[in-house]
């Protein structure tokens, strides 16, 4: 699997680490009840197909970015 780092260009997946679901919205500080925070932290969807995720080029430039990836086929789309 090859991932396009917005800074370094296309590189091998072994240089990256997955950083979680990028479609979730974090409750605002001081807002939301315990359930809202619980759901944000502990409940995850497990989509099959197109997905938007956080990735970090951890062994490269250490940049964090959003990546679209198809979880069924590993087809890689846009990075931003």
């Amino acid at each position, binding site marked *: 699997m090859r991932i396009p780092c917005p800074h370094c260009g296309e590189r091998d997946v072994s240089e990256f680490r997955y950083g979680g679901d990028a479609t979730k919205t974090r409750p605002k500080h001081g807002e939301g009840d315990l359930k809202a925070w619980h759901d944000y932290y502990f409940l995850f969807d497990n989509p099959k197909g197109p997905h938007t995720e956080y990735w970090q080029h951890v062994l490269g*430039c250490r940049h964090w970015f959003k990546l679209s990836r198809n979880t069924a086929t590993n087809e890689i789309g846009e990075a931003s």
Partner: protein
Amino acid sequence: MLDRRSALASAKPYVSSVLQIGEARGFSLLQVAGPAKAISPITGKLPTKVGTALQAQGRTLMRTGETQFWIIGSENDAIATKLDGVAILTPLSHSRTRIFIEGAPARDVLSKGLPLDFHPTVFKPGMFAMTGLHHTPVLVHCVNENRFEIYALRTFALSVYDWLTDAALEFAE
């Protein structure tokens, strides 16, 4: 004056008639973060893109981030004093060990562990990459066709050296 101690003092020498692996000592490394237009009047023209180093005033300049650069100079380089107040400076000379590998089989050895395309038409002299070897970050610089310099974290330097010499056993004597 205090002597700089090598992290590879206990390393087993690698002997081969076609390939040399060892430590390239005697350099300074400064990480500079700030706008290129403030830094370049002092350092000379900075690279606009990542992956290709430039030479200026006897130093090697690399772009390692959006607004972050590596300046590699001679051991007693005083560039940091000139950049003080201009950019954010992180002296890294003591945090990295520079390991060289030179010879015709160098590209074959590096290909065994680094996830990069080492074909001579792709990874050319002057180019560099921030990548990983055995889960530790390294910067690999192609100095000329058959010579590469690896900037490894000092505490991982012996591990990186051992990995390299192990991967190069087939060319050893």
